């Protein structure tokens, strides 16, 4: 019997397992479906990871390596090439791999760290034909950085999410011509720094409020039609531009990969498409925790590691001390805060600080994140340069929550100050 099974050996799983080990949990197993640990970081060969955690701008593989090194000094057991197929009610994890076969591993606690997947052409129903040459940006990234292939020579990128921006630079460096990065929203969802160093550096145009309205080509993509959109995101007739390209990359969003979670009857928040969790990232199922991109899509891996550390420590606490009373404040949102994680904060969490991650629905130059219980203000955080693409992190001291006594909800609101 394992104390803790961590499903997924990417950045979240690695940090969670390490944190649990540091808290004294000794029988830990990581199950990873790929041949190696590190998850998606292995194909993210660009730098910029770990500025917050290590004070250095590491590449993805280097960032993963730092955590793998930490694990090497522990007794955490790892099984790679292993797919988890199901998680039973009693926290038994069903998995399969070529050497052990189909096995059931019972565990005292489980941490879900399966990451996310990319939205596809289907999710946005792009009209046109179905030729080869349409890739999600992450798939193209894997083909290039792991497998060593060029996916095309003349490329249009739909969506200005970070992976799309990073791929614009990567393709250009390897000799492809990136004709444009097309974004349906009036603002990019990618980090500002990535727009500067991936598009501006190479003179790649960013077409905001534009979208791809037709894919052309019989065998292989032969071109795409791009149109300007109105404020309802509907294509404006007469604004058609035809791009002569052989490849279309899609960077149109990420979706937490929660099929195991759903099968385990853990309910999902429709806003995050991840599980509802308490302040310690425990789901509504006792002893099952979630962290990283499976819980909500993060923009920085540093936050993934941070969140996974909470989850790992909380799982350790659960294994050693049992379940904490579930009497909690529900977290509600208003004023343009689109979601929070956690969605529930225990009245007696045992944590000094409760980290609340959130996103907002618009760009705000200067604003305050205000936490209230009824009319009572609990805390106020001043923030600058808020954007939908950039996660906001606040650390709420638990002592302040005494002010919320008598209430059963905490409201998290955005107030613009400029």
């Amino acid at each position: 019997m394992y104390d803790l099974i961590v499903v997924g050996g990417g950045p979240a799983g690695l940090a969670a397992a390490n944190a649990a080990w540091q808290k004294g949990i000794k029988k830990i197993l990581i199950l990873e479906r790929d041949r190696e640990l590190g998850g998606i970081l292995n194909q993210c060969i660009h730098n910029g990871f770990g500025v917050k955690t290590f004070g250095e701008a590491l590449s993805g593989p280097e960032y993963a390596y730092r955590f793998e090194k930490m694990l090497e000094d522990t007794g955490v057991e790892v099984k790679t090439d292993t797919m988890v197929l199901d998680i039973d009610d009693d926290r038994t994890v069903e998995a399969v791999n070529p050497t052990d076969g189909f096995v059931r591993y019972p565990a005292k606690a489980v941490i879900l760290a399966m990451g996310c997947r990319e939205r596809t052409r289907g999710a946005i129903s792009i009209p046109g034909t179905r030729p080869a040459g349409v890739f999600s940006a992450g798939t193209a990234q894997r083909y290039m950085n792991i497998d060593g292939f060029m996916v095309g020579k003349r490329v249009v990128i739909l969506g200005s999410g970070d992976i799309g921006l990073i791929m614009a630079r990567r393709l250009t460096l390897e000799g492809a011509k990136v004709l444009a990065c097309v974004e349906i929203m009036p603002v990019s969802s990618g980090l500002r720094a990535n727009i500067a160093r991936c598009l501006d550096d190479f003179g790649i145009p960013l077409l905001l409020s534009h979208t791809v309205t037709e894919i052309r080509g019989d065998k292989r993509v032969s071109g795409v039609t791009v149109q300007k959109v109105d404020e309802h995101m509907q294509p404006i007739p007469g604004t058609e531009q035809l791009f002569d390209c052989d490849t279309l990359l899609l960077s149109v969003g990420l979706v937490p990969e929660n099929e195991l979670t759903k099968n385990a009857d853990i309910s999902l928040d429709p806003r995050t498409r991840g599980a509802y969790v308490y302040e310690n990232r425990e789901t509504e199922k006792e002893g099952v925790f979630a962290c990283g991109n499976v819980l909500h899509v993060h923009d920085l891996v540093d936050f993934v590691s941070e969140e996974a550390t909470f989850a790992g420590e909380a799982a350790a606490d659960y294994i050693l001390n049992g379940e904490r009373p579930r009497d909690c404040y529900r977290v509600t949102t208003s004023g343009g805060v689109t979601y929070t994680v956690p969605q529930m904060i225990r009245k007696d969490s045992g944590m000094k600080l409760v980290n609340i991650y959130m996103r907002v629905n618009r760009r705000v130059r200067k604003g305050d994140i205000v936490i209230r219980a009824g009319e009572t203000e609990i805390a106020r955080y001043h923030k600058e340069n808020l954007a939908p693409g950039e996660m906001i992190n606040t650390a709420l001291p638990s002592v302040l929550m005494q002010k919320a006594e008598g209430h059963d909800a905490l409201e998290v609101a955005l107030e613009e100050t400029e």
Partner: protein
Amino acid sequence: MREMTCLECPRGCQLMIDEGTLEVTGNSCPKGEAFARSEITNPMRVLTTTVVIRSRNEKMLPVRTQDPIPKSSMAAAMNYIKNVRVKAPVEVGDIIVSDLADTGVPLIATKRVSE
């Protein structure tokens, strides 16, 4: 005045620099000031890419320049890297090219690859 996004950290501050006085505004830390000055004289970037590796499991080895190199040297650097062939094993931080395209900056491995 020139406007730019700081690339020193994910925060991405919007910097303004007076090209005459070299006075920088909009930065939240000293790194931003230095960045803006370098950006108008000799913009520097860390180059990340891959080189071909011979090993049992991997075909490509991810690499980066240890420090930023001039943007103007990028093309020459990529051209050189195209011909580099490495044999596993390789450790993170191993120097793959000691002076990349006359920049004086080494190219280092960013992944451990076993034989």
